[in-house]
């Protein structure tokens, strides 16, 4: 009741402002002293109230400075964004207090107390993170067990990939389709031969040695390239009016969508070799890529189906009235429009694919997360799990966040165009 009587308004603005800021400062003083100086300045109160005292004091302070149309721009802004009601005030305070409590230790661990110099674990003398670990193992984290002198081959492959993707954006429309055809059909062959070697005097490097972040990209790039056409055909099959084709597509799609990727990888590791003719051997990485491709193709099919369904019926009718057959209609009229609609969906599928690649550890392939698992069990570098996983999380976060922002922008752009 008291609070309602003490309703601040424009007449007594200054006194309330002073009172509110005073209470707010006491509250913050309390929280700062208890967090940084380990000193509870409200020790004389009962324990529960003492524990909540910063919150209560600051909330009271915020209540007093909640003055509508005070004329002070900063105050109005604060009130509007942080302090529009008692509930909002308490929520803001909780967020601020949590930040005050947890951000400084986190920053200390990551930067201020961390060790960057040196080459062995013994160089890590500070309290914080030992980034020396990441520095020493960086090459392994990126390239796995791939021999150091041959790593230029991976670099060149990715350079070609980046250049051709980049040229899609700058080259005129006329050449774009050649670049895309190059990426879809010629690039995989070049990259595979370059990285694995065995021809043109390049040293043969078995896939077991591939690893690190580059393996993540290799697996996801190949799986994306292969799953795309399969996905398109499955989507067309699912919308076909021929029952046998329709139901086998549905069955295929729902089968893969209903099981976890890890069981699919298990299948590729232990069950698939049983299905091959006696005596034939298929490379482990190849089996993994096939498994992930089939798995992602089912998701891709659903994305493409969304685009097919979104197209108005008139497009189909118009194409048919021009006398086009099924394939001509789909390749020249329907798919170009439908695929353009689902570019964000395809980007999201690719994002999910990249996030799923660490799972290939179950068949013994070591990409980034797997290499960290290996490095942290090295007797010279025990106890470095946190550094390793934080580094991997950061790398993946940067990649995925950029891609998700890109796909969101694309979504916005495409939705305004329509």
């Amino acid at each position, binding site marked *: 009741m008291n609070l309602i009587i003490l309703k601040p308004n424009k007449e007594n603005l200054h006194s309330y402002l002073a009172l509110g800021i005073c209470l707010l400062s006491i509250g913050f003083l309390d929280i700062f002293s208890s967090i940084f100086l380990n000193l509870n300045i409200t020790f004389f109160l009962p324990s529960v109230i003492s524990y909540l005292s910063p919150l209560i004091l600051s909330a009271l302070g915020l209540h007093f400075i909640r003055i509508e149309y005070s004329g002070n721009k900063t105050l109005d802004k604060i009130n*509007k*964004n*942080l302090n*529009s009601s008692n509930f*909002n005030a308490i*929520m*803001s305070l909780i*967020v*601020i207090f949590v930040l005050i409590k947890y951000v400084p230790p986190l920053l200390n661990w990551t930067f201020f107390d961390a060790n960057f110099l040196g080459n062995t674990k013994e160089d890590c003398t500070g309290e914080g993170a030992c980034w020396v670990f990441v520095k020493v193992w960086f090459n392994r984290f990126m390239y796995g067990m791939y021999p150091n002198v041959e790593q230029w081959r991976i670099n060149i492959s990715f350079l070609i990939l980046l250049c051709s993707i980049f040229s899609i954006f700058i080259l005129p429309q006329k050449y774009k389709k050649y670049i895309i055809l190059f990426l879809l059909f010629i690039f995989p062959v070049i990259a595979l031969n370059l990285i694995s070697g065995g021809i043109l005097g390049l040293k043969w490097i078995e896939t077991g040695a591939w690893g690190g972040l580059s393996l993540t990209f290799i697996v996801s790039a190949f799986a994306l390239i292969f799953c795309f056409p399969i996905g398109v055909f499955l989507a067309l099959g699912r919308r076909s009016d*021929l*029952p*046998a*084709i329709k139901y*086998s597509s549905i069955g295929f799609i*729902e*089968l893969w*969508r*209903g*099981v*976890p*990727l*890890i*069981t*699919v990888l*298990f*299948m590729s590791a*232990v*069950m698939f*070799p*049983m*299905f*091959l*003719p*006696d005596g034939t051997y298929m490379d482990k990485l190849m089996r993994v890529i096939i498994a992930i491709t089939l798995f992602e193709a089912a998701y891709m099919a659903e994305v493409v189906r969304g685009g097919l369904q979104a197209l108005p019926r008139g497009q189909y009718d118009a194409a048919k009235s021009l006398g086009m057959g099924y394939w001509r209609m789909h390749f020249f009229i329907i798919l170009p429009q439908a695929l353009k609609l689902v570019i964000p969906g395809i980007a999201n599928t690719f994002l999910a694919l*990249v*996030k*799923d*690649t*660490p*799972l290939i*550890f*179950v068949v013994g392939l070591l990409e980034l*997360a797997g290499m*960290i*698992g290996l490095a*942290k069990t090295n007797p010279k570098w025990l106890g470095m*799990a*946190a550094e390793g*996983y*934080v580094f*991997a*999380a950061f790398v*993946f*976060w940067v990649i*995925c*966040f950029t891609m*998700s922002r890109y796909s969101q922008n694309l979504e916005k752009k495409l939705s305004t165009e329509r």
Partner: protein
Amino acid sequence: MNLKNFQIEIKNKKRLIPQVLTLLFIVLGISYFAFNAQVNMGNRGIAFGFGFLSQEASFDIGFSLIDYDGSYSYARAFLVGLLNTLLVSAIGIIIATLIGVTIGIGRLSSNYLVAKFSEVYVEVFRNIPLLLQLFFWYFAALRALPLPENAINFYDISYLTVKGWYVPKFIWSNFSIFIYSIIASIVAIIFVSKYAKKQREEFGKHIPSFYLGIGLFFTIPSLSFLFGGVTLKFEIPVLNQMTTTIFNFQGGVSIIPELMSLALALSMYTATFIAENVRAGIQGVGKGQKEAAASIGLTNTQILKLVVLPQALRIIIPPTTNQYLNLTKNSSLAAAIAYPDLVLVFAGTALMQTGRAIEIVSITMGTYLLLSLSISSLMNWYNKSVAIKEK
């Protein structure tokens, strides 16, 4: 043969040939693989069959909800794994929904800090692969917890240590009567709400069925304590000194770190997607709906309960069902940190011991498939019941 019949014949052929080819391709493919499998299994001297399920498993499982040791059969081991999968999925779904709804509403808050905090949460946890989050919790965060002798103490009844989280154990007597009383209370609540609806629609009488329901839910089970002979005791974990340096907690229930980190990672990761669904759902309800509801004099709670939520739920539920399914499927990542779930127990240990790759992998995949299909059909049924009924 006249022209029309000829045309129909051509059309039929056009429809028939691709279908026959597809079916032929599928049948040939399957029989090719089956033939190879038979040859391979013949070479290894194993015959296809599910008889191994009744054999003695002779391996131990670290964490089990039902009685299990090495002397039980493989089928029992399968059941243990399945129950562990369901347990972690259920825990994950509950926590993920709580966090997701909170964060989703938080993203729409007028409070800048809360909205920003929620956004950062979503962007951080959504863009880090689940496996890495799982490894982080298991190998880094939970390994940093104290040893049992320095356990983090929650009011002397529960202790958090590096070996797990020890919570009090409920010891029930006449537990079945308690369950019956809960079922009775649920039946009573359904009856009351039906009656209240009828009264409201026919006579315009308002019966506070919600509060009555809450009352019933607590009174009937508590009656079972008074008259049904149900008793509940707590067994609180106690710190014991095993040797001079080794301490351990005894009694109570120990929630193993594998379960904790798996539940944490799954729920925090899935919560981001649920949060986005919730946000999209609430934003999807047009502003005009709220204004219209306010203009006919509904209170804020009524607007939320009668106008916004029913429409938002319709948008939220289908994608959220998908997320629940994803969570259940992602729980198979347990294999990475040795939580004994279906994949680790069955497709891992049991497969290693029996070598029956085809049977075991297909049972495992079939189980997940069945799980997914049943959850999705259940949710489809619910979805239909809340969908707009066009007249």
